[in-house]
C-alpha cells in the first residue's frame, strides 16, 4: 500500500514538474515572462466635471485596465489595495504609499482626463515606485476629438506605450485588428474587429461564401477565398479603398491564401492540376509555382514570418492530416506531428512555435477532442492550451507573440476567443451568428 502510494505520489510530482517546465519554456519563448511586474493603475482623475467627461473617462479607464491586464506581462494590483488619495498629476504622488504593502506595486500608471472645446485631453504618467530619485518612466499627453471611440483609442495608445517600455521592446497589440468570417448578415462574409472584440465591421458583401481571410503585413489588403463563377478563387479586398480589387484567377479550386511577412508572396492551395497542392505566387500576380507533389491533398500553408524561408502546411500523405514543414522552394519536407488529426497551423512571429488544432486520439472509440496546441519546432516539445471546451480550431498568433486567437464551440455556437499563449486569460470576443476562422493582423 505504501509502495503504491509512493508510486502515485511520484507520478503526480513528475507530472507537476513537467508542467512547470512546459510553462517555463513557453513563457520564455513567447515573451510572457516567468516574473510579472506589479502594476497599479488607478482610475484617471477628472480634470473637468461635466457629464461627458465622466462618460469618456469611464470608457478610458475600463479600456486601459483591460489592455494592461490582457498584456500578459503585468500582475495588476487590485484596486481595493490602493491608498485613499489617488494622484491625478505628479505633484499628488506619494510613492511611499504605493511601494509598500498592501499595494506593493513596482509601477504606477496615473493621470487625468478632461474635455475642453470639444476635445478630450488626457495626461498620463508611468512612475517607478521603487526609485524615489527619478521615478518617471513615461509622461504622455493626448488630444483628440471628444468621442467614445477616441477615448478607447487614447487608452490603447497609452497602454501600448507602457507595454513597449516595460515589455522588453515588444510593441503592444491594443491597436491591432482581427479579421474573421461571420454569417450574422445572412451569408459568410469577411469581418474585422478590434483585438478586444469591439467595433465589429463587415468588410465584404459578396452574397455567397467568403472564407479564410488573411491580412497583408502592411494592413492594406485582405486576401480570402470566395466562390465565384470560376469556382473557388483567391480574392483581394482593399482596406484602403473599401472594395474588392482584382487578383489573377487560376484554374481549379483555390483556397487558404497566406501572406509572407515581407508582403512579396502569397502561398495557397490549388487543385489546378487535379490534385490539391501548395503553390506560391507573387503578391502582384504572375504564374504560381508548385511546391508540393503528392497524391494526397496538401492544404493550409503558412509562412515562417521570421525568415519567410519555410512554409508549414497540412498534408494527408500518410493517412490522416498531419502538419509538415518545408523550405519555401518546396524542398526538405519534414513531418511535425506524429499522430491523430492535426490541422490549421499558425507560425509564431518569432518563428519558434507552431500553433495548431490537434485531435491527438482520432478514430472509432477514441473520445478525442480538437484542442489548440503549441509546439516548439526545434525540440518538438508541445503543450496543450485548451482543455475540455468543445471543438477548438483555427488558431492565429498576435503580432507580439504573446496571444492566440481561435474559434471554439465551447459555448454552443462557434465563436471567436483569445487567450495568452500559455492558455490562460481566455476571453470571448464575438457574439451573434457564427464567427469563425480568425486571423490576427501583422501590426
Amino acid at each position, binding site marked *: 500500500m505504501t509502495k503504491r502510494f509512493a508510486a502515485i505520489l511520484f507520478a503526480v510530482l513528475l507530472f507537476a514538474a513537467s508542467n512547470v517546465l512546459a510553462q517555463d*519554456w513557453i*513563457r*520564455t519563448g513567447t515573451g510572457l*515572462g*516567468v*516574473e510579472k511586474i506589479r502594476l497599479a493603475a488607478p482610475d484617471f482623475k477628472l480634470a473637468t466635471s461635466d457629464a461627458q467627461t465622466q462618460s469618456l473617462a469611464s470608457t478610458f479607464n475600463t479600456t486601459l485596465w483591460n489592455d494592461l491586464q490582457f498584456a500578459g506581462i503585468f500582475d495588476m494590483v487590485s484596486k481595493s489595495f490602493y491608498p485613499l488619495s489617488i494622484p491625478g498629476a505628479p505633484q499628488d504622488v506619494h510613492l511611499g504609499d504605493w511601494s509598500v504593502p498592501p499595494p506593493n506595486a*513596482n*509601477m504606477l500608471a496615473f493621470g487625468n482626463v478632461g474635455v475642453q472645446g470639444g476635445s478630450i485631453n488626457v495626461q498620463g504618467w508611468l512612475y*517607478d515606485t*521603487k*526609485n524615489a*530619485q*527619478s521615478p518617471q*518612466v513615461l509622461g504622455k499627453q493626448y488630444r483628440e476629438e471628444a468621442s467614445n471611440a477616441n477615448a478607447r483609442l487614447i487608452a490603447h495608445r497609452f497602454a501600448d506605450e507602457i507595454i*513597449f*517600455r*516595460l*515589455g*522588453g*521592446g*515588444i510593441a503592444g497589440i491594443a491597436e491591432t485588428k482581427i479579421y474573421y468570417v461571420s454569417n450574422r448578415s445572412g451569408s459568410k462574409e469577411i469581418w474585422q474587429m478590434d483585438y478586444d472584440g469591439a467595433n465589429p465591421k463587415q468588410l465584404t458583401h459578396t452574397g455567397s461564401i467568403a472564407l479564410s481571410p488573411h491580412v497583408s503585413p502592411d494592413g492594406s489588403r485582405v486576401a480570402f477565398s470566395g466562390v465565384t463563377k470560376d469556382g473557388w478563387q483567391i480574392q483581394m479586398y482593399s482596406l484602403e479603398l473599401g472594395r474588392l480589387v482584382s487578383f489573377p484567377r487560376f484554374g481549379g479550386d483555390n483556397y487558404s491564401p497566406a501572406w509572407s511577412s515581407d508582403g512579396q508572396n502569397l502561398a495557397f492551395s490549388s487543385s489546378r492540376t487535379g490534385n490539391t497542392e501548395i503553390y506560391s505566387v507573387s503578391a502582384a500576380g504572375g504564374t504560381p509555382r508548385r511546391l508540393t507533389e503528392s497524391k494526397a491533398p496538401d492544404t493550409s500553408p503558412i509562412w515562417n514570418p521570421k525568415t519567410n524561408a519555410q512554409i508549414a502546411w497540412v498534408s494527408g500523405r500518410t493517412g490522416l492530416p498531419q502538419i509538415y514543414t518545408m523550405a519555401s522552394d518546396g524542398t526538405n519536407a519534414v513531418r511535425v506531428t506524429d499522430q491523430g488529426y492535426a490541422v490549421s497551423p499558425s507560425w509564431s512571429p*518569432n518563428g519558434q512555435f507552431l500553433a495548431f488544432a490537434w485531435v491527438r486520439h482520432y478514430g472509432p472509440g477514441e473520445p478525442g477532442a480538437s484542442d489548440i496546441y503549441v509546439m516548439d519546432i526545434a525540440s518538438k516539445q508541445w503543450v496543450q492550451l485548451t482543455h475540455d471546451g468543445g471543438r477548438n480550431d483555427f488558431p492565429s498568433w498576435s503580432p507580439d507573440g504573446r496571444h492566440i486567437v481561435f474559434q471554439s464551440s465551447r459555448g454552443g455556437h462557434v465563436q471567436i476567443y483569445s487567450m495568452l499563449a500559455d492558455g490562460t486569460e481566455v476571453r470571448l470576443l464575438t457574439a451573434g451568428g457564427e464567427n469563425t476562422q480568425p486571423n490576427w493582423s501583422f501590426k
Partner: protein
Amino acid sequence: MAADVDIFPTEGNLRVPLIGSVALHSVLFALALFGNLIPSGRGESWGGTTGGGGAMSATLVSSIPLPTPPVETQNVLANESKGLAQSQPKETSREEPKAIPIPERETKHKGPRESVQKKPPPKEVAKVEDNKIPFGQGGPVSGPYGSFTSGSTKGGLSFTGGTGDFGSRFGWYVDGVRRKVSENWLKYEVDPRIDAARRVYIYFEVTRSGQPVNIRVEQSSGIPSLDQSAMRALQRIDTFGPLPPEYSGNYVAVEFWFDYRR
C-alpha cells in the same frame, strides 16, 4: 714394582670434570626452563595463538617515514619531471614576488549584495591566495539592481554608460534587462554532470535601439557548456527595447555574471 698399580688417575682428578658437568647441565636446564622468554625471529609469534591479542592493530600515517638519503640523487630515471631529456630535477615553484592584488576585483568584492552571499567555511578561505577572490565572494559588481535568483542559480549585472548613473536613473530599464536575460538563460543547456562552477562573466553592449551587440565571454567559468548557455541567453534576445530617450549616450555596456549550482 708395586702390586697395586693404580690404573686410574688419582682420585682428586675426577672432581673438576664432575663440577663442570653439573654446571653445564644446570645451564642447560635453565635454558630449557626460561628459553621462551628470549625473543626469537621464528616460531608461532606471527599470528599465533600465543600472542598478546586476537587481532593486529594498525595506525594510519600520512607518509612512510623513510630515511632521507644524505645526498640528492641525480639519476634521470628517478627524476619527477615528465621531460624525457631533462637531467636536472625541476625546481619547486616559488611565490611570485611581484604579484599584487587586482584592485578591480577588490571593489566588486565590496558590492552591496555581499551580505546576501554565503560565506565559505574557514578552511576554504585559508587556501585562498591574496590576489584572488574566492568563489562565491565576488558579489555583484555594482548597482541596486544587480542580481537575480532562479532556483539555486544566481546572476547579476552592472551597467556602465553616460555619467555612470544609468542604473540609478533608469532602474526600470536595468530591471527589464535583468528579467529578460534571466528568463532566457536555460539551465538545462549546462552539462548535467556539473554540480557547481566558477562564476562566468559575459560582456555585451546595448545599442540605442535596444539590441545586444558585441556579446563575449569576459571571464570563463572553465566549463564550456556553462559559458555557452550564458552566451546563448544573450543571443536569444532580439531587443531589450530602445534605451530611454532621456539617456544621451549611444550605448550602454553591461557586464552580466552567472553563478551555477545544480
